[in-house]
């Protein structure tokens, strides 16, 4: 089927354009399935980075954070910690990784002050320019009938001796309420012990269901 575009100038024959497609010269509208929701690139040192997710439930099924982070610790690396709905609770966690010398695996909760450790952020003593990558997936983030699974893929190919890592980690948020906030901090033994430095980047993506 064709379509005419009519112009205000000229007659019916001279002021019109014939298209063989109903798109009439417009680009195809292809709604995306993965949307960029927001990005936060820190302009100064910040201890906790929090995202309010409550407005996303109607549109998205899964979420992903893509993070490039570094902390101001005096060492070569620091653990990333994640809290859900600002709850300081112990949740089940499993990890599989390597430190450049040995593989490791583990399970168990992490005490009462954080939800998940996601090894390992680059520390302040690492070479300038080094940042660690994190990809954090939250599955069925807004379900009220399921526990929520959070999984991370992360690594730290730092030149700093003894702090290399690559790992897969998973967390089960054992609560049926939807995820309303996600917070990130750093600390080897507890929540918000160190801070993210300027340039650390947190990008949030929504995946439609």
């Amino acid at each position: 089927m064709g379509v005419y575009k009519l112009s205000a100038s000229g007659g019916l024959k001279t002021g019109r354009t014939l298209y063989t497609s109903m798109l009439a010269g417009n680009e195809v509208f292809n709604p995306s399935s993965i949307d960029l929701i927001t990005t936060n690139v820190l302009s100064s040192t910040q201890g906790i980075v929090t995202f309010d997710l409550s407005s996303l439930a109607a549109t998205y099924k899964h979420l992903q954070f893509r993070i490039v982070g570094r902390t101001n610790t005096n060492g070569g690396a620091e653990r990333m910690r994640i809290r859900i709905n600002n709850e300081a609770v112990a949740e089940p966690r499993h990890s599989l990784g390597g430190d450049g010398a040995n593989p490791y695996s583990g399970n168990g909760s992490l005490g009462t002050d954080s939800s998940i450790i996601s090894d390992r952020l680059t520390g302040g003593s690492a070479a300038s320019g080094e940042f660690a990558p994190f990809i954090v997936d939250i599955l069925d983030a807004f379900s009220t009938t399921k526990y929520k699974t959070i999984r991370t893929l992360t690594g730290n190919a730092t030149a700093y001796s003894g702090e290399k890592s690559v790992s897969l980690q998973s967390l089960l948020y054992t609560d049926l309420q939807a995820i309303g906030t996600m917070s990130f901090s750093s600390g080897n033994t507890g929540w918000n012990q160190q801070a993210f430095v300027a340039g650390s980047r947190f990008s949030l993506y929504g995946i439609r269901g």
Partner: protein
Amino acid sequence: MPTNAWSPLANITTSSAVSSVVFSNINQTCRDLILVINASGTSASRYGFEVLLNGDTTQTNYSRVRLAYEGSLYSDTASATIIPVMSPEQGSYTVHVMDYSATDKHKPMLLRGNVTGVTSSNYVYLDLSSGRWANTAAVTSLTISEIGGASSIASGSSFALYGVKS
């Protein structure tokens, strides 16, 4: 307003055996790159293929830590870039190059992939790697190249490059 996050940037499928695949003049409007590899090698054995940024072949400019399985699980590290491994059997890899267009950071990389070893247990390989290119320059090209000249990328291998906006 949310924007479409993933953009296909380029797609290469080899029509003959080649020693390398190059993505050049990479669009700089995205934040991360995702390279999806589904490829095999021409050699009867498994060989590593290095991922080079901006054509930099100086391996000491790279750092890598790896968790791998090939009959047993191990972890190692090297002053070298990440290496998808190819065999006559199809291998699948996803490579993330984070903040590739930034000019204030080294370039962190994550790789996840495997060869299943259906036709031979010698091909079994599972790899989870983190890498870093110690350079703050924006990444404008990616090269996937054989190491040592012992194998080539087989015909029909596919390499798809996506940009992730932020």
